[in-house]
């Protein structure tokens, strides 16, 4: 029996798993029809990849902007983004674990990334990694660091 196209595509992408790949390889050694299908799948993938590989945009300038924003962040020049992030994280911790639990994490002079670390640990343990990630994404949503840092440095 011929493998389904989805399995041939997965085989082509090395995503079929060892057992299934072995079975498909054995089938291919005996079936010209499926070898033809696989050649076509590979050919299409190569063409699409080659089209996608054309350098659409130049990322050269972006790393400097990121590193400048990191330097600005370390120096406390963040345009208020750090305190906004801290407030959001505290609010989420309060919501899920209550004010006493949130306060128990607080240390003097705590930075936003330390709050992020504490929130990560609590959320991962009690809500699970995926829900924790969703809450963290929510806290980071809409906050911009690099553009404001770029504009402040002008």
């Amino acid at each position, binding site marked *: 029996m011929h493998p*389904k*196209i*989805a399995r041939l*595509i*997965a085989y082509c*992408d090395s*995503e079929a798993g060892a057992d299934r790949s072995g079975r498909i390889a054995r089938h291919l050694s005996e079936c010209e029809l499926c070898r033809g299908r696989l050649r*076509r*799948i590979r*050919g*299409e*993938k190569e*063409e*699409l*990849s*080659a*089209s*996608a*590989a*054309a*350098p*659409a*945009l130049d*990322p050269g*300038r*972006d*790393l400097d*902007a*990121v*590193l400048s*924003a*990191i330097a600005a*962040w370390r120096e406390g020049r963040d345009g208020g983004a750090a305190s906004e992030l801290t407030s959001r994280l505290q609010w989420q911790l309060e919501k899920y674990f209550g004010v006493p639990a949130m306060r128990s994490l607080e240390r003097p002079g705590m930075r*936003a*990334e*330390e709050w*992020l*670390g504490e929130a*990560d640990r609590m959320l991962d343990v009690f809500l699970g990694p995926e829900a924790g990630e969703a809450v*963290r*994404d929510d806290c*980071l*949503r*809409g906050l*911009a*660091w*690099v*553009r404001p840092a770029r504009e402040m440095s002008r």
Partner: protein
Amino acid sequence: MDPSPVSPPFAAGIEQEIADLYEKEASGILRYAGALAEDPETAHDALQEAFFRFFLCRSAGQSIRSPRGWLFRVVRNYVLDLKRAGSRVEAGMDWIRTEPGPERAAPTGDSIFDRLHGLPEIGLSPREMECVRLRTEDLRYEEIARVLGLQTGTVGALLARAHGKIRKAVSDARSGAQQGLRLRPDPRE
């Protein structure tokens, strides 16, 4: 291929880690962001914000199992958030069927991609297009699933469906071209 998992760093090493990761992944991520946003400025902003968030999360001590998939996911969410907010990004993921912009190479041959180029509609759903796009960036199915918030098995199914539609579009384009040739009046007549 999938970069090694990244564990909590020493503070001094984060910038280096970001520079290394940037060198490896930035082009692909920017290409994806550009296709998704269809606006170069938004794409650059998305790339920069993703790497900055990576710095933040690493500074917070997070281990990031697949930095590449993580960055693609953040970029995607960033662009989609802007779209939802009704900012300057308005168009969809039309990379496979739009006319070439000044920054994209114009089709030059008779490849599948060229044949697809200019077809008004090949019927790929946005998810199918994103799966195809992320696959061309060499993301593993597990990474694609994480970026798009899907099950890994669904990625395989979407790719198979997209493959079928692309095949059909190519074959329709071929037969259309042949028909066009037949229908074109003979100048001698």
